[in-house]
C-alpha cells in the first residue's frame, strides 16, 4: 500500500502531534479510509521514538524509583481487584485441610464408638467363654469327683448320660461305673438316627473309677437322633457298630 504523496509531509507532522487546523482535520478524515497512510503514520511514530534516543544520557535520580514504587504500593487497587487465581491457593488449601480434619475427626469419633462397642461385645464373649471353659473343665477334669446318685441299696450299674443338641450338632456324654476293657479295646458311642445307619459318636476308655466323658465328637449336621448306643470296638474305633450293643438309651 502506498502513501498518498499529498499527505506525506502532514503524516510526519501528525506523528509528532504538531499538525493543526484544517490540515489536521483533512488528514484525520483521510486516515479513516486509508490503511496505507495509517501504517505509514505508525511507522513515523517509531521514527519519532528514535529521536528520543538523541536525548539519551541522563538517568533519573535514585529517589524517583523509590517515589514510583511507593506510589504503586499506595494504589494496590488492581492487585486486589484482579488477583491471580494462584493467590487463592493457600486459602483453598487451608479450607481443604480444615474439611479434611473435620472428616477425620468424625471418622475418628465413629471408629471410637465402634471400638467401644466391640470392646463391650468382646468382654461379654470373654465372660461367656470363661463360663464355658469352666463347665468343660469341670466335666473333663481328671481329679473331679464323679458321683452317680441312684436309689439306695442299688448296686452300682454302668450308666451313661448323653445330652445332644441337634441344631448345633453338639453332644456331651458322661459315663460312670463302666468296666475296664482289655488293651486295644475301647467303648464307642453311637448316634442312632431316626433313619439310616448308626453314626460314630466318639470312642472312650473309662478311668480307674469307671468314669469317662465325650464332648462334642465330630458329627454330621442336623441329624435327628432316635437313640444313643454303646458297643465295644477296637481302640481306633469302627465305622459300624460291632454287635452286641452293650447299652442303649432313647431320647426322653
Amino acid at each position, binding site marked *: 500500500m502506498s502513501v498518498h504523496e499529498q499527505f*506525506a*509531509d*502532514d*503524516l*510526519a*507532522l501528525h*506523528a*509528532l*502531534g*504538531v*499538525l*493543526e487546523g484544517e490540515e489536521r482535520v483533512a488528514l484525520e478524515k483521510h*486516515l479513516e479510509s486509508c*490503511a496505507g497512510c*495509517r*501504517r505509514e*503514520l*505508525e*511507522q*513515523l*511514530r*517509531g*521514527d*519519532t*521514538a*528514535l*529521536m*528520543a*534516543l*538523541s*536525548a*539519551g*544520557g*541522563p*538517568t*533519573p*535520580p535514585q529517589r*524517583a*524509583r523509590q*517515589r*514510583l*514504587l511507593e*506510589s*504503586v*504500593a499506595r*494504589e*494496590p*487497587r*488492581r*492487585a*486486589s*481487584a*484482579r*488477583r*491471580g487465581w494462584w493467590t487463592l491457593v493457600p486459602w483453598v488449601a487451608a479450607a481443604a485441610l480444615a474439611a479434611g480434619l473435620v472428616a477425620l475427626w468424625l471418622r475418628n469419633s465413629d471408629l471410637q464408638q465402634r471400638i467401644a462397642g466391640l470392646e463391650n461385645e468382646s468382654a461379654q464373649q470373654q465372660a461367656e467363654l470363661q463360663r464355658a471353659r469352666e463347665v468343660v473343665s469341670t466335666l473333663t477334669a481328671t481329679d473331679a469327683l464323679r458321683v452317680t446318685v441312684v436309689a439306695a441299696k442299688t448296686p452300682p450299674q454302668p450308666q451313661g448320660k448323653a445330652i445332644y443338641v441337634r441344631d448345633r450338632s453338639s453332644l456331651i456324654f458322661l459315663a460312670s461305673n463302666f468296666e475296664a476293657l482289655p488293651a486295644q479295646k475301647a467303648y464307642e458311642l453311637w448316634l442312632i438316627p431316626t433313619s439310616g445307619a448308626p453314626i460314630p459318636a466318639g470312642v472312650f476308655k473309662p478311668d480307674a473309677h469307671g468314669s469317662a466323658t465325650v464332648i462334642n465328637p465330630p458329627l454330621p449336621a442336623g441329624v435327628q437322633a432316635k437313640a444313643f448306643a454303646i458297643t465295644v470296638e477296637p481302640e481306633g474305633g469302627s465305622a459300624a457298630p460291632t454287635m452286641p450293643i452293650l447299652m442303649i438309651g432313647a431320647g426322653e
Partner: protein
Amino acid sequence: MGNAVMVSRFVPGGNPAGAAHPYFKGKEINGLSGSEIKGGMADAAVVSAIRSGDENGMAALYDRYSAVVYSVALRVLGDTGAAEDVLQEVFMQLWRNPGLFDSSRGSLGPWLAVIARHRAIDGLRKRRPETDIADVVVSVETDMAGAAERARAMEKVRGTLGSMPSAQRQALEMAYFEGLSHSEISAKTGEPLGTIKTRIRAGLMALRKAFAT
C-alpha cells in the same frame, strides 16, 4: 488534555502488523527493545506482571525504561523535577490502566518514549520553561546492562542528526523537543511553511534509513 484522549492519538485503529517499528523489533536499542533484554524479563512478562497487579513488574519496568522516559522528558522540559513528574505520571498511568498499552500493536519501549514525549510537550505547552535547556545539569549514569548497544544506537541517532543539514535538524528538533507546529517554526526561522514540513519529514526518513540496515 485527558489521558484517554492523549493515548487515542497515539494508538489509532490500524494495521497491527505494521504497528511495531521495524527498528525496534528484536533489537536492543537503548532499552527500547520490544523483545527481550539480556538478564531480565521479556517485555511481555513485564506487562503481564503489571496487569496482574504485581508491583515487581513496575520495578522491572522502571529499571528498563526509566532512563528513556526521563531523558526525553528532561530534554523537552529542561527541568529535572518536571521530568521526574512526567516519569512518575507515565508509569503510574500504565499501572492504573495497563490496557492502554496493546502489546500486539507495538513495542513497549517506543510506546513509552512516544507517550513520555507527548506528556512532556503537554506540560511544555502549558508552561514555558523558565531555564535554558543548556543550563540543565545532566547526570550521566550509564546502566551496565546492554550499555554498549545503547551507546551505539545513541551514537547512530546523534550521528544521523549531526550529518543532516543544520536547518533540517533544527526543524526536526524544534518539532520534536519543543512541540512546535510548522507554522510556529516558520515564524521563528522565517522559512516557508512547505519547506519546514518537508524538512521535518526528510529528517525522520533519514533516521529510518540509518536504522534500516
